[in-house]
């Protein structure tokens, strides 16, 4: 049973929801658009307006509509909020995943409901300095699990208070402050440090936002809805610094452990603003995993590169390039290329197509690349 739990932690399918590539639009800090200063989760009113205007294509709106009018329709169910304290949001994301496309013997197709969240936001005070976030949603079938473990659960619930515009404290269930919170849930940069879709933890996070620097310190006691022996308790630290006015460099460290596993990770990352929505992001890191029963003692190394180019408003060409060496004491590693197209035809709708090509490098064998593609729809109200 303990081994099953360990496996679950190692192979849990993951997903986070943030768009750090929007540094290409000039947004260096996540706090501009998200209630959570490290990104992910519910959008602020401003964030929804940005999604409706700068991010989404304007081609489907009537010509007479001004950007201001579009921004006013970005509220829940297209309405301009009539009061300041309560916000509700609904999010859905699903995709068709096709593995080994074109192969008569091994092609598989699967529709995955990856996200179905209902969110409640309570906010009070000047500049919404006191917030309460409740996010209840669907947790899909974990990757590698043979039994149905999908469930509806609290994805996050926390309260935050900003003592000053520069400093805030947040307490409750939330994502770990660690690395680039990219949207690609199977990315090695999220799975390797266990900082992804279902890795939320109960804890307290302090956030400092300076002129050029941003710091996060997160102490956590694991996810309290899990059995105590599998809760990952520990802490993480992340900082980012603005360089050359528009780019960001950052680093993260984390240590966490439960009764079976000790996880020590570090990462360095960079986000470059290439203007008009184009961006280049990268992260390199290592994760050392040690199991007390000596069944596991290895250090994994990864690199992640994500490139965004925006030829037209609402359209992004992206490529994810990932490198992963499961055990740095051994030679094999893989490189995964994922060119894709992301399209926001109108506010509240994101369509995306990705192709993934994985190539294994090993001194002992050489195989054909593996392929898969996914077609994704993301809707929000």
């Amino acid at each position, binding site marked *: 049973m303990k081994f099953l739990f360990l496996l679950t932690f190692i192979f849990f399918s993951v997903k986070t929801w943030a768009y750090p590539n929007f540094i290409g639009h000039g947004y260096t800090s996540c706090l501009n658009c998200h209630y959570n200063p490290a990104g992910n989760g519910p959008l602020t009113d401003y964030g929804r307006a940005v999604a409706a205007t700068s991010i989404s294509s304007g081609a489907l709106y009537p010509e007479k509509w001004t950007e201001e009018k579009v921004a006013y329709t970005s509220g829940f169910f297209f309405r301009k909020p009539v009061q300041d304290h309560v916000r509700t949001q609904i999010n859905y994301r699903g995709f068709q995943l096709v593995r080994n496309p074109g192969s008569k013997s091994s092609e598989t197709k699967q529709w995955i409901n990856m996200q179905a969240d209902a969110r409640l936001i309570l906010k009070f005070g000047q500049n919404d300095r006191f917030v309460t976030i409740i996010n209840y949603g669907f947790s899909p079938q974990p990757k590698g699990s043979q039994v149905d473990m999908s469930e509806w659960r609290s994805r996050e619930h926390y309260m935050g208070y900003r003592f000053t515009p520069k400093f805030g404290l947040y307490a409750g269930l939330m994502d770990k402050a660690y690395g680039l919170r990219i949207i690609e849930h199977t990315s090695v940069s999220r799975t390797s440090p266990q900082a992804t879709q279902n890795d939320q933890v109960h804890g307290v996070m302090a956030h400092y936002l300076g002129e050029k620097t941003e710091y996060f310190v997160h102490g956590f006691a694991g996810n309290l809805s899990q059995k105590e022996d599998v809760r990952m308790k520990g802490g993480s630290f992340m900082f980012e610094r603005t360089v050359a006015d528009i780019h960001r460099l950052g680093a993260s460290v984390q240590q966490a452990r439960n009764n079976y596993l000790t996880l020590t990770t570090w990462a360095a990352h960079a986000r470059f603003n290439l203007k008009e929505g184009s961006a*280049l992001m990268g992260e390199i890191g290592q994760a050392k995993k040690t199991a007390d029963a000596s069944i596991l003692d290895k250090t994994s190394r990864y690199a992640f*590169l994500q490139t965004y180019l925006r030829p037209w408003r609402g359209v992004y060409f992206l490529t994810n390039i990932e490198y992963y060496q499961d055990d740095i004491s051994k030679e094999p590693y893989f490189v995964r290329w994922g060119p894709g197209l992301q399209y926001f035809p109108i506010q509240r709708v994101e369509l995306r197509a990705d192709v993934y090509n994985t*190539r294994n490098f090993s001194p002992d064998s050489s195989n054909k690349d593996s392929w898969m593609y996914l077609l994704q729809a993301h809707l929000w109200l």
Partner: protein
Amino acid sequence: MVMMRIILLLIFLIPSAWSQDVQEAFKRKDYSQVSEIFKENPSRNFNRKELIMISYSLRKQGFYRQDVKMNVRLIKKEYERFHKRLLAQIKSGDTIDSDDYPEALKVLYWNLMNAYGNIILGYDNQSQLIKKDHEHYLMFAKILSELEFREGKVDKLNDKITAHILMLQNKIYKFSSSWYLQYMSWQQESQLKGPSVSTNLIVTNKGLCLGTDLGYENARYHWYVDGGVFFGSGGVSADATGSGISYQQSNVPAYGLKIGPGASIIVSSSKSRIGFKIPVVYNSQRLTNPGQAGFSIQSESAISVATSLYSRWQFDKWYFQTEFGKYVDREATIWTLGIGRSF
């Protein structure tokens, strides 16, 4: 005596009839007719009111250069003294009191600026003439600015003209070149042929590619030819099921070259771009034949054509680039990532 009177009457009546023809056509809003009357006899002694009507009609008809002449004529005729004084004040940097100048003169400057603005907006491509027209435009924009006349509208037109000139400049293609160094991985296919079975072999290579691209680009598009030499090595392994042979090689040297056309769309002011290439790839890699009798290695064609998706992120002169391609006639892929420098 009667004859004399008739001649004098005709002399006075003809200009009167002329004047009426301009005003009547203008009243009918027949701007074409007004323009025609002017063009038939431009040196005719039109009065001030007629000149204003003609100027308006010429603008309506889109004859901006003639309109410029008309407004200059009006200024010379009616306001030359003011005009010279204003130019002298601007030149010497004196403070200008706009109330010292008649409104009608300011309107004439406004017409001149608009006429030159419309001339500039009429250019579809960069031309030598634009420079002169733009200088005139800027001169009248400055005069209006000094006179504090319709400042908001002047600024708005200035922005429009600046954007149009930038657009024209952006359309100009210039020669461009760069060199690059890439980390590269590519696969090569071969077959292990035996007496009874043949097994597909995949060699996974990695190495470096040194290359250059030459082409033409404007602010939006880049057309080029890209070529480079590459070298590296790779390994291969196979178990020919049932044949009793296990074949493995590692660090097999490989080299080759790739050359082909490409096109990109430039998507940001940093000159980052996305596009495609169609490289022809020549790859040379010799796998050793197995020692067992009856077995041999049969390589696929050394020359292949690929289509690839190309992206470049520009940091001033230096850039980072990625390329992901697939051979047209087979399943294998080729990808690169590297740095380069533009010239």
